[in-house]
């Protein structure tokens, strides 16, 4: 084992299947356990906020899911770049696998945000810059997934979605800025924000950290699982294509 080993070796589908198969149960179990701990801790053993009351408990879902919604897109961007530059199939398939997980995270962030906003703002939906940005992110995910599923050839689909991920990222950042600009003055700066640091005292902070770690691990586990599925599906399609040729 003295030969130099490079990280890129795991971009080989077979190596990836081996490694991910070993890792997956551990990541999944620890993610699930941490989620249980974080949510029970947060739900049962933290006090109410003096202004937000018990709605503060929603942060244990909202903040981690929002974080992962953005990070999932970022991971897809990095995976897309790796695919375009180094042509590792696993990378392209991992980006494809991550997208539905990112959608679910975005939806959780939107739903919990809306539910939190209802008692705070008196309405289910406000065009708050943050909520609006997540709505736009949701649309980017939809387009990305739709493009993947519309194209039959795997490599073409991987190339096109990678370019879309890169261009989309630029426009997503631009949209964030645009939405902030657009909403200034229309909506009084939220007097209560879940994400403002001053609202997150230590007693809320530690269970929140646990919940964030849980969401990260669950995300990794799901992406590993789904990438394994995509690799198998790809293998199956390759068999079928060859069957047809003979």
């Amino acid at each position: 084992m003295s030969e130099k080993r490079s990280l890129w070796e795991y971009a080989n589908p077979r190596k990836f299947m081996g490694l991910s198969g070993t890792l997956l149960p551990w990541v999944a179990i620890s993610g699930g356990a941490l989620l249980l701990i974080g949510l029970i801790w947060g739900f049962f053993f933290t006090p109410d906020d003096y202004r937000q009351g018990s709605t503060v408990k929603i942060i244990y879902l909202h903040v981690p899911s929002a974080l992962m919604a953005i990070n999932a897109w970022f991971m897809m961007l990095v995976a897309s770049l790796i695919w375009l530059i180094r042509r590792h199939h696993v990378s392209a398939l991992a980006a494809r696998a991550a997208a539905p997980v990112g959608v679910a995270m975005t939806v959780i962030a939107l739903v919990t945000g809306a539910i939190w906003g209802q008692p705070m703002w008196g309405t289910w939906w406000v065009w708050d810059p943050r909520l609006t940005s997540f709505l736009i992110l949701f649309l980017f995910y939809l387009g990305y997934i739709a493009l993947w599923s519309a194209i039959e050839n795997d490599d073409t689909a991987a190339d096109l979605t990678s370019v879309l991920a890169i261009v989309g990222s630029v426009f997503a950042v631009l949209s964030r800025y645009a939405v902030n600009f657009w909403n200034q003055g229309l909506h009084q700066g939220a007097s209560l924000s879940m994400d403002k640091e001053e609202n997150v005292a230590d007693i809320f902070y530690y269970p929140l950290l646990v919940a964030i770690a849980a969401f990260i691990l669950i995300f990794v586990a799901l992406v590993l699982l789904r990438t394994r599925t995509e690799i198998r599906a790809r293998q199956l399609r390759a068999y079928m294509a060859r069957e047809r040729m003979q």
Partner: protein
Amino acid sequence: MIALLDRDIKLAIRAGGGFGLGLAFFLIVVVLVPFSVGPKSDLLAIIAPGILWLGALLACLLSLDRIFALDYEDGSLDLLATSPLPMEAIVSIKALAHFLTTAVPLVLATPLFGVMLNLPAEGFVWVMISLAVGTPALSVIGTFGAALTVGLKRGGLLLSILVLPLYVPTLIFGAEVARRGTLGMDIQTPLLMLAGITFATIALLPFASAAVIRINLR
């Protein structure tokens, strides 16, 4: 390159749909809005800049799939790809042709539609300026979307889904220029942003569109 632009404009004129389609859609939006929100002049005056931008954006969106579809189907795109023209030039010309045949008529028709929506007098010039500055970006971004979906059956719906979030910043800044201009407010920041988006997309996005077309032709 001029030959390609010339041909695309000729095709748009002869096919009839070129100028007509976008304008007709713009007209539909402008006529239907008062029926749906009520005829009150003061309400219409407030929302007119936004409605005009929305109508222009939807009219652009509707005509995007024509940018490459016909050239793909009849093989012209293959032939153009093997011609001396670089693909970046081809997609830029296509975007320019879309701008000239779809967006320019919309900008020119804006005063008429502004009157129908009771747009305040100060608003006309700013709505037209914001559309003139912003619609090139819509054409260039739309060309990228059309390049992504070229060759796909039922690409139209997918094209709309892909382009929708990409249009958000342009719409926000464009409509903001129109709104603030109409109200006599300071328009410098949104106008600069709008111009920035337009120049940046014109400068950079053709490279992405060209790459995507090459992938799709393989």
